[in-house]
C-alpha cells in the first residue's frame, strides 16, 4: 500500500450571505487505497468532487478531517519535515493545460522549476541541461522545444510538458486530473500509451481521474466511483464492469456501452 487516504472530509464556505457563513461539505468521508505500481481509476460526473479530492491528495487542500499517508508518512500531519519530504513523492497533472504552465516561461524553465523544487542542487548548469534533455526525450518532444513558449505548442505537446515536469520530481505517485479529457481522440490514445509506458519503466503508481469510461478501460487496473462526494462503488477488477451493484455506476457504464454499440 503506497498511499492511504482515510475518511477525508472537506468543506468550502458557501457564497457569503448576509450575517451567515454556512459551509458546504464537498467530500463526505472518502477513503482510498493505492497499491504500488497500479493505476487506480476515479470516475464520477462533473461536480462530484474529483478535483477537490485530487488537490487533497497532492497536499494543496487541507481536509477538515481525515488523513493522507504516503509510504507511512502523514501528508497533513504535524511534522513539517515530514510534509516537506512528501512534496516530491506525488505529482499532479491538470486538465486545462493552457493554465497549467506559466505563459511567460520557456519550456525549459517550466521543467527547471521542478528540478529546483525537489532540491536538485545546481552543481553545474550542464547537469540540469542533461536532465531537461532526457525528460523531453522521455515524453517524446524534440529538444528544440526547450526555448519555446507554451502558446507555441499544441494541446498534446503542452500536456507532455506537464508530464515531463512532474516526472522531474521523480515521484512515486502521479495524479492525473482529467489529464487527457481535453485532448482529441487520437492524441488521447497516444498520450495514454506514453503514460502506460512510463508507468512500466519507472514503476509508478497512478491515480487516473476521468468522467470518461472508455479511457478507464484503457488505463486502469481498479476503479472507484465517486458521486456527490461519496464513494459509491469500488471495483477490484475491470471484468466486473458488467455486473455493477450501484445504480449510478451502472448507468454510467451503460451510457458508454450504448455508445460503443
Amino acid at each position: 500500500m503506497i498511499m492511504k487516504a482515510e475518511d477525508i472530509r472537506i468543506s468550502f464556505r458557501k457564497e457569503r450571505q448576509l450575517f451567515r457563513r454556512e459551509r458546504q461539505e464537498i467530500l463526505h468521508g472518502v477513503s482510498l487505497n493505492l497499491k504500488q505500481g497500479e493505476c487506480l481509476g476515479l470516475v464520477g460526473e462533473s461536480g462530484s468532487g474529483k478535483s477537490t479530492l485530487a488537490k487533497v491528495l497532492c497536499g494543496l487542500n487541507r481536509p477538515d478531517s481525515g488523513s493522507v499517508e504516503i509510504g507511512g508518512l502523514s501528508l497533513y500531519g504535524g511534522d513539517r519535515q515530514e510534509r516537506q519530504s512528501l512534496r516530491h513523492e506525488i505529482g499532479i497533472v491538470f486538465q486545462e493545460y493552457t493554465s497549467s504552465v506559466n505563459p511567460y516561461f520557456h519550456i525549459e524553465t517550466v521543467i527547471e522549476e521542478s528540478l529546483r523544487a525537489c532540491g536538485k542542487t545546481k552543481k553545474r548548469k550542464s547537469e540540469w541541461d542533461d536532465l531537461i534533455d532526457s525528460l523531453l526525450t522521455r515524453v517524446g518532444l524534440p529538444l528544440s522545444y526547450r526555448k519555446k513558449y507554451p502558446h507555441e505548442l499544441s494541446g498534446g505537446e503542452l500536456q507532455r510538458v506537464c508530464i515531463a515536469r512532474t516526472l522531474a520530481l521523480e515521484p512515486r505517485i502521479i495524479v492525473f486530473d482529467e489529464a487527457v479529457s481535453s485532448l482529441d481522440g487520437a492524441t488521447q490514445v497516444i498520450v495514454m500509451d506514453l503514460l502506460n509506458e512510463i508507468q512500466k519503466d519507472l514503476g509508478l503508481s497512478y491515480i487516473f481521474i476521468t468522467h470518461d469510461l472508455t479511457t478507464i478501460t484503457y488505463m486502469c487496473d481498479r476503479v472507484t466511483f465517486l458521486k456527490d462526494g461519496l464513494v459509491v462503488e469500488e471495483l477490484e477488477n475491470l471484468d466486473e464492469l458488467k455486473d455493477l451493484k450501484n445504480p449510478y455506476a451502472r448507468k454510467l457504464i451503460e451510457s458508454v456501452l450504448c455508445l460503443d454499440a
Partner: protein
Amino acid sequence: MIKQFFQSRLSIACLVIILLFTLAGIFAPYIAPNDPYETDLMNKFSSYTREHPLGTDQLGRCVLSRLIHGIRPTLFLSLLAMAGTITLGLVMGILAGYFRGWVDEVIMRVVDVMLSFPSQIMILAVVALLGIDIRNVILANIFVKWAWYARMIRTTVIQYTGKNFVLFSKSIGSGSPYILTRHLLPCIASELVVLATLDTGWTILNISTLSFLGLGVQAPTPEWGAMLNEAKNVVTSNPGQMVAPGVAIVILIAAFNMLGDCMRDAMDPREVRN
C-alpha cells in the same frame, strides 16, 4: 510581445518623443541656448529670434531654455511619484492578494477608505496640511494613488494564484518567494506597466496643475505648470506666452497616453498568443 510592440509605428513614435524629452531633460544645461534664470528686462516679450528661438517671457528670460530646464521637475518628479506609488501599491496589493486572511481585510479596508475620498481634493488637503513644497506634492500624489494600484494588483494576484501553474508550484513546495517573484510578478508587470504609463501622463498633469496653482514647484524654478502660472498673469496682453509650455505639456502627456494604449495592445497575452 516586445516584437509586437515595435511593429507599431505609433508606439515607436511615442517612445521616441518620450526619449527625446528625457534626454533633453538630462542634458538640459548643454542643450539650452541660454541661462533659464537670466533676466533681461529691456528685452521682454521678444518674438522668435535666433538668440531666443521661442522668444522671451515677461522678465526677458529665454522661453526655450526654461522649457528645456523645466523637463527635469516636470518629468522626473512625476516619474518619482509613480515609482513611489507603484512600490507601495505593489507591496500592499501582493500582501493582500497572496496571503489573504486578516492581512487582506486590514489592507483592503484602508484602501476602501482611501478610494472614497475625491483624489484632487485629497491632494490639496495633504499639501495644505504638510505645507507648500514640491516634496509634499509628491507624497500627496503617492498617498492618493497607491490604493488604486493596491486594489488592481490584489485582484490580479488572486486571479493568478488560482491558476494551475501556481497550484502546481505550491504542490511541489516551490516556496512563496519563488512563486511571487517568478510566477506572479511577470504576470502583474504586464498589466502594471500599461496602467503606470497611462498614469504617468495623469501625474505630470497633476504636478503641473499644482504648480500652476502655486502649490508645487515655486516661481523662479522653470516648471511647465509654474511657467503657465506666470504666463497667466499676462494672458490679456501677451497670450502667446501660454503657447510654449501648454503645447509641451500636451505633447508629453499625449505621448504617454498613446504609449500606454499601444502597450496594452501589445502586452495582452491573449492578443499575442493566438
